[in-house]
């Protein structure tokens, strides 16, 4: 990566000892496996996707949050009905900032929160009846194309069979209704919920509409959630390049698009964590290959677009892609020049999600900043170390209870988009299909990689390194700011954005400049804390 100055950082092992000293021995032992002072010259391994220790305050949410909030949340034309007590539904009501464009006639249920609001007697006598009534009611009022039912913790326990209810009501109402067994206690984080959501969408929606859309280059974008309008910028780019987007999982998305996604010829995977299984399943069942791309950062975006061009191996497409890049780059360069003097050489830390902690490092590098600590909230080992570790991954108790779909070639519709020979050729030409190296190889020596970082670890890192900016979510925001360190939310974008592709990069550069160099940080210390003696001047000079 250009511009990354190889920082000479303090010895990681020693910093780590300090961090662990506060923990009880058992916890220290466990956490030591999830904290790695990076050294990409050695084989290193990190423990991730393990259950948070009770009493350690984590950033993580629950399986239900991942299932309803993340994957189905941004999909506008399905009614998402939470089966459970009121809080779970309330808290996932329009709190993620994914945007959608339903068009003048389109359905959009995203501003709504539907819940069965279970009461005492539903817990005691079961809630299936209330669930059925709620489905009927939602149907009577809205006549949606589809209804999804989401199970919360108590539901799993009282034994309501949401799938049976879904089948019954589907039959009765003649619309697509299906359930998600995403009780919050399943899995170790929201990641389990992504998996469950994707499985169900794959089972109940994908493949329902075989009509091939017009267009020469049909693609799906997987793992892009349209926070702050990112997907809109990406869509615009695709259009200008001549790429036809069938479906985005899931941002500015609709059930109709999911139903048709198997007609695409290439899958682009943005967030590897939340969606790689869908990419795999689409390849197995329908023969659509996938590649990992990254639309965060101008450089990464250009690289990704060119890879797509090479995949389709079409002169006109490549010409258009180059043209678009050439149109976009001047504004990017200009903004870069403008902010670089204020940002160069500064340090960033990023602890979010399952892909952004990696993707944003490149964006920071473009304005001369290096990321000296990063980690995911809910990622798995392959997101850190790359897909090479997949064959050796052990399935633990927490993952075992998440269904793995057995997918086979579709007898009629399986059609390999590229022959093995073509794929080999692509590989030689530097097009990397189905590969992802993870975050760790991209990080400098002695920087820190920490999975599921705790409050205490955050505090230690800040105290030791005093970064210029700390990126995480709302739960960390104020703790970090109280310490006088600028903080940027990379889940919600702090109500800013978009940050994707070229225009987004420009937004991000400028926003970082403003954030880091805000005058407010100079006011924190009151004068009486530093100079007790009275001076002769007063007021402005």
């Amino acid at each position: 990566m250009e511009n990354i100055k190889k920082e000479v950082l303090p010895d990681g092992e020693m910093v780590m000892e300090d961090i662990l000293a506060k923990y009880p021995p058992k916890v220290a032992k466990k956490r030591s496996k999830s904290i790695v002072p990076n050294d990409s010259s050695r084989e290193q391994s990190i423990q991730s996707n393990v259950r948070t220790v009770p009493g350690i305050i984590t950033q993580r949410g629950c399986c239900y949050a991942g299932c309803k909030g993340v994957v189905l949340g941004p999909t506008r034309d399905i009614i998402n009905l939470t089966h459970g007590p009121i809080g779970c539904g309330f808290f996932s009501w329009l709190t993620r900032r994914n945007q959608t464009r339903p068009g003048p006639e389109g359905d959009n249920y995203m501003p709504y929160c539907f819940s069965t609001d279970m009461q005492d007697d539903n817990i005691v006598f079961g809630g299936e009846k209330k669930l059925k009534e709620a489905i009927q009611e939602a149907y009577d009022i809205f006549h949606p194309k589809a209804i999804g039912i989401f199970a919360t913790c108590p539901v799993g326990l009282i034994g309501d069979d949401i799938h049976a209810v879904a089948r019954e009501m589907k039959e009765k109402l003649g619309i697509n209704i299906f359930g998600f067994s995403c009780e919050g206690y399943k899995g170790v984080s929201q990641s389990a919920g992504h998996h469950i959501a994707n499985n169900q969408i794959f089972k109940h929606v994908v493949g329902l509409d075989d009509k091939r859309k017009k267009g020469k280059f049909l693609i799906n974008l997987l793992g892009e959630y349209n926070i702050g309008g990112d997907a809109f910028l990406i869509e615009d780019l695709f259009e200008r390049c001549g790429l036809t987007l069938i479906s985005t999982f899931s941002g500015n998305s609709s059930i109709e698009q999911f139903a048709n996604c198997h007609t695409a010829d290439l899958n682009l995977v943005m967030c590897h964590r939340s969606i790689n299984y869908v990419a795999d399943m689409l390849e197995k069942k329908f023969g659509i290959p996938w590649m990992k791309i990254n639309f965060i950062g101008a450089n990464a975006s250009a690289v990704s677009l060119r890879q797509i061009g090479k995949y389709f191996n079409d002169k006109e497409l490549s010409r258009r892609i180059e043209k678009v890049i050439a149109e976009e780059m001047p504004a990017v360069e200009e903004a870069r020049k403008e902010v670089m003097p204020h940002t160069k050489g500064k340090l960033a830390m990023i602890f979010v999600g399952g892909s952004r902690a990696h993707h944003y490092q490149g964006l920071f590098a473009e304005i001369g900043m290096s990321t000296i600590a990063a980690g995911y909230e809910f990622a798995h080992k392959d997101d850190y170390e790359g897909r090479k570790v997949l064959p050796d991954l052990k399935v633990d108790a927490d993952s075992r209870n998440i269904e793995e779909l057995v997918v086979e070639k579709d007898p009629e519709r399986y059609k390999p988009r590229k022959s093995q020979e073509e794929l080999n050729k692509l590989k030689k030409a530097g097009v990397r299909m189905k590969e992802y190296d993870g975050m760790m190889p991209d990080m400098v020596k002695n920087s820190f990689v920490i999975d599921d970082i705790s409050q205490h670890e955050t505090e230690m890192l800040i105290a030791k390194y005093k970064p210029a900016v700390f990126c995480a979510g709302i739960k960390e925001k104020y703790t970090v700011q109280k310490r006088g360190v600028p903080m940027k939310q990379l889940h919600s974008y702090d109500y800013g954005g978009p940050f994707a592709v070229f225009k987004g990069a420009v937004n991000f550069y400028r926003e970082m400049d403003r954030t880091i160099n805000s005058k407010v940080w100079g006011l924190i210390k009151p004068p009486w804390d530093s100079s007790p003696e009275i001076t002769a001047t007063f007021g402005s000079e």
Partner: protein
Amino acid sequence: MKTREKLDAATQNPCKLCAPLGASIVFRGIRGALPFLHGSQGCSTYIRRYLINHFREPVDIASSNFSEETTIFGGKQNLLDGLKNICRQYQPEIIGVASTCLSETIGDDVPMILREFFLKSTSEILPKIVSVSTPSYSGTHMDGFHNAVLSVVSAIAARGNKLRQIGIFPGLVSSADIRYLKEVMGDFGLDHVILPDYSETLDGGPWTEYQKIQQGGTSVGQIASLGHSSGIIEFGDSLKMKETAGTFLEKHFSVPRFASGLPIGIKLTDLFFKLLEKMSGREIPSKYRLARSRLVDSYVDGHKHLFEKKAVVYGDEDIVIAVASFLFEIGVVPVLCATGARTGTIKRVLPEIASAYDKKITVCEGIDFEQIYEKTENLDADFMIGNSKGYYIARKRGIPLIRIGFPIHDRIGAQRILHLGYRGTQQLFDRIVNTVIEKRQEASSVGYSYI
């Protein structure tokens, strides 16, 4: 589209939150306390996010992180482990354990597990641990709030020599409201203990050094002293029918309890100040006399703008009742008063107030926002007053929303909105009048700037 008048299996856009959230706020108002939710981590993460967004302050809430296995074998081990880790890392003075729907459904006996924790523990310095049962499938966040205050008081309040000191249970008010109450008590020369007190913990400045648990809050010692205070003031009409911290102290410690609605508006604030005169044996300080007379004066000035205007009031019962009666006082008719709670309180109290003013209003409980939306169809209301969650209704109906109460996620400074006393009423009043003026001004074709 069918209307939902008769339907209510599904709740659409709920007008209430869940019980452990209320309990968590209470625990954040106790010095050195850490809230701990016994259940899956999702509940505590969601609730943290919600509180952080409202107060714009850090809010740590621990969890016992249930797994699928825990749901089969019960949450005892998780709770024990969690408490141990929290004690070591945070060294809290007190831990507030609230249950969640999951642990309640499983039927974990939290008090028993806590006894075992103390029996087994080898460490000498252990925090106090208080537990409260907060299943959300019965009640709302307000029940969680009041039950947590009751649990804390019943676990900690102690006997002792009578103190000339007043205890106040203000209910779910803003950080600024708590600061105001302290100022008032101070001005009357009354020693006081306010529970909970998150005036600092949930509205503080930058830190010079890291605070594991934010400074401020009511101390355990102060809570103990509530048992030998000379009086208790408890706000909230919704508390009338149930056991509360106040009734507990009255019953078991013979502390006289004075209950009233939230002091919003002149009438209710007058009552509060009269009570303080009696309690302190002092006359109302001139500062408040003047504040009151300025307020009355402004009522007169603003009357022409407000007279017969119509408002929609929604949110927690206590604030709905207090604000509705304040609106009557200034000539506004709260044509629709609604809450998501279902305790019978507002149905009992509000029609009476309305008939005293000779007005007809609609009072709804157990309502969700979609129903409020439907009911506002032909109301021709001039403004709405309540939390941010009703914003979409105001937007669709094209009327302004005045944000008060909890939660406020689309404005900054929710924790600094003052609702109580003459000062809070003055601020509310000015906001209301100006909102009405602004609406007229914007709609005018001339654009007068001289009104």
